[in-house]
């Protein structure tokens, strides 16, 4: 019985596949999907340019990627194994991610290797290292004891509320850190970013913040520690792109924010400004390379609708249903055939677009160090390339469902295209929160899967502000609901 049912579905699949490939117009449309997608992607790639490498606002980290590295550092050298301990007594809430804590770093050059254990005003205790690792400790703020211990090539962070019971936050691999490193106290306070979107324009303003923290019970222990405790205070600093800061009222960076440190009776008061962490531009060359799939989406949306409605128009659906009376299975077979075809062709289009588009983008300025070359083997890039193909497949299935629900080509195609494309245009005219919700509620959010970089609300395209999987999830939900509704209606209505 089971195998008979499976054979039945196999035959249905074969029948639907034959229908798809024997209509010349559809085969042409499918070929056009690939060609137009690749062509338009190349168009987008050739037209994209940036001068980030000429006006850098970053330094290059040990991983070769652009990073931010700016803070106030009160330090002394430590050779070999050892540890640094301090109690953060107070911390100003200058930014939710402002940091006050202990650090071990390869010198005082901005962009060098480091491990830091800090307390933040809103995000508890964090252990961060080499601009990549950011591990959460327990929640809560000051006062807090913090300790970093170096053992060979690894550094372990511990924290405590009373200085007696210590909790391990984590251990980080610090290969590449020289035998003699600088250890001490630091204070950072990231810039405040204000994004406003209205009437079709997105404006981004960034202004520095400055935070102060006090420390006591500061101690450095080590096999070869000098013990003489000569502390030096330095501002670790990086270049800034001045143009992004114009128009910010409290802008003080040209003169430099007043930072520094004082010590009295073992109590250190440190004032710092700046951010430590990855600083990649939100502009995403991978997304630009895949942009042309938009045209493919329009083609597949029309085809998905027609794959269903043309059967109604010619009365073919009655023959189909006589041959296979279980209507839900016919719909399922159509969805499988069309979805698979769309996914495979979508994947061909995205891979070719990616391969051919990247060199053009590199010529346009999307080159290292500001834009490390994306590789297909990296997960976010692979996610974008394969996920975009899945986006194409889901839109095809969604269109099929809408076609079965409306049974009218013009209406169904317009409905699908309007839902996929128009929200992006409405969103750029709306304030940020409105745009965000529009992306969470319409299939236009699916464009987020084309991004290989983390979500950012600093770009014109509204979908860049939502998580890629959330965006694709919305499309998935639309496809499932449309199919379910279509199956129910097919069973209820006469053909």
């Amino acid at each position: 019985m089971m195998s008979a049912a499976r054979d039945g579905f196999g035959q249905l699949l074969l029948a639907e596949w034959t229908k798809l490939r024997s209509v010349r117009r559809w085969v042409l449309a499918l070929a056009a999907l690939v060609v137009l997608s690749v062509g338009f992607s190349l168009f987008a790639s050739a037209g994209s340019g940036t001068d980030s490498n000429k006006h850098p606002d970053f330094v290059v980290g040990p991983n070769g990627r652009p990073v931010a590295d700016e803070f106030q550092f009160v330090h002394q050298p430590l050779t070999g194994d050892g540890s640094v301990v301090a109690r953060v007594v107070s911390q100003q809430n200058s930014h939710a991610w402002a940091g006050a804590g202990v650090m071990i770093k390869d010198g005082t050059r901005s962009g060098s290797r480091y491990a830091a254990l800090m307390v933040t005003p809103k995000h508890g205790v964090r252990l961060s290292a080499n601009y990549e690792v950011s591990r959460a400790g327990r929640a809560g703020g000051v006062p807090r004891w913090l300790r970093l211990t170096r053992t060979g090539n690894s550094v372990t962070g511990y924290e405590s509320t009373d200085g007696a019971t210590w909790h391990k936050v984590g251990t980080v691999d610090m290969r590449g850190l020289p035998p003699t490193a600088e250890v001490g106290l630091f204070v950072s306070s990231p810039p405040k970013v204000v994004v406003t979107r209205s009437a079709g324009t997105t404006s981004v303003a960034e202004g520095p913040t400055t935070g102060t923290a006090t420390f006591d019970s500061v101690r450095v222990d080590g096999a070869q520690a000098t013990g003489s405790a000569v502390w030096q205070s330095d501002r670790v600093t990086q270049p800034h792109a001045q143009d992004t800061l114009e128009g910010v009222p409290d802008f003080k960076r040209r003169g430099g924010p007043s930072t520094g440190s004082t010590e009295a009776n073992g109590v250190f008061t440190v004032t710092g400004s700046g951010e430590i962490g990855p600083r990649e531009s939100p502009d995403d060359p991978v997304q630009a390379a895949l942009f042309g799939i938009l045209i493919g989406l329009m083609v597949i949306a029309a085809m998905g609708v027609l794959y269903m409605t043309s059967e109604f128009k010619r009365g073919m659906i009655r023959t189909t249903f006589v041959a296979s009376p279980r209507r839900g299975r016919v719909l399922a077979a159509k969805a499988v055939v069309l979805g698979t075809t769309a996914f495979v062709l979508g994947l061909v289009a995205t891979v070719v677009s990616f391969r051919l588009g990247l060199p053009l983008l590199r010529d346009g300025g999307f080159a290292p160090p500001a834009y490390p070359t994306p590789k297909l083997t990296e997960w976010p890039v692979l996610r974008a390339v394969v996920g975009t193909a899945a986006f194409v497949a889901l839109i095809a299935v969604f269109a099929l469902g809408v076609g079965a629900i409306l049974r009218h080509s013009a209406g169904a195609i317009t409905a699908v295209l309007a839902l996929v494309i128009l929200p992006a245009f409405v969103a750029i005219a709306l304030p940020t929160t409105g745009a965000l919700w529009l992306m969470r509620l319409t299939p236009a959010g699916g464009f987020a899967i084309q991004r290989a970089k983390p979500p950012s609300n600093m770009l014109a395209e509204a979908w860049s502000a939502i998580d890629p999987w959330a965006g694709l999830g919305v499309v998935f939900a639309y496809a499932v609901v449309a199919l379910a509704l279509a199956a129910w209606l097919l069973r209820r209505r006469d053909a």
Partner: protein
Amino acid sequence: MHAEWTKLRSVPSSAWLVLAAVAFTVALGAVVTASTNTRECPTPSTCVHDLAKVSLTGVRVGQVAIVVLAVLVMTNEYATRLIQTTLTAEPRRLVVLATKAVVVVTATMAAGALGVAGSLLAARGMLPGNGFTAANGYAVLSLADEPTRRAAIGTVLYLGLVALLSLGVATIVRDTAGAITTVLAALFAFPMLAMFVSDPRWHTRIEKYAPMDAGLAIQATRGLRGLPIGPWQGLGVLAAYAGAAVLVGAVLFRLRDA
């Protein structure tokens, strides 16, 4: 002429589409206008918003209904084989195409006029409440103002040209799905591309030559000097596309069998 008008009028979808064009234009225009506020500007009197353009944002969505309407006028006849009857009754094909064009453009411009009037009225009501008052140095939106009048009339003409473009493409493609997809892609793909492309030269090219971007230059009422293309020249670019589509459509319509 009368026959074409009856055909358009008697299909229920036409009325819905015209209604949708007006409703979407006014509704979206109102939403965007409502979200435009002097609070976002450095000071209440230094906003650089092009208020007429902001209040007419809705046509970007409303035009979709017009595209469908104009495409269906042609392709519906092919889908139902009515075209053979039509051409038997009126064998001069160019007359058939011209009549269709006149009817659909008239209906579109009527809808466009309603949509534009509704949008401007809504904006007039809302903008002072959002800080765009005479006290802050903003004049009330009014058709007595030459640039605003140009934007209003131009937007109606824009919709008429979009209808012509759609009719032309529909005559060439003779298929509802293909024609709608082609026109929507031609209109929306380029502005979407403009969201990404960072190179200013390409931005200028898109604003100058893409049908929707160039055509909507007609809505600009301030900062004209900074625009890559003037308002009327922009509308002219769209008119060239529409004219070309109708011309090719007309030639093919004459040469091909129905």
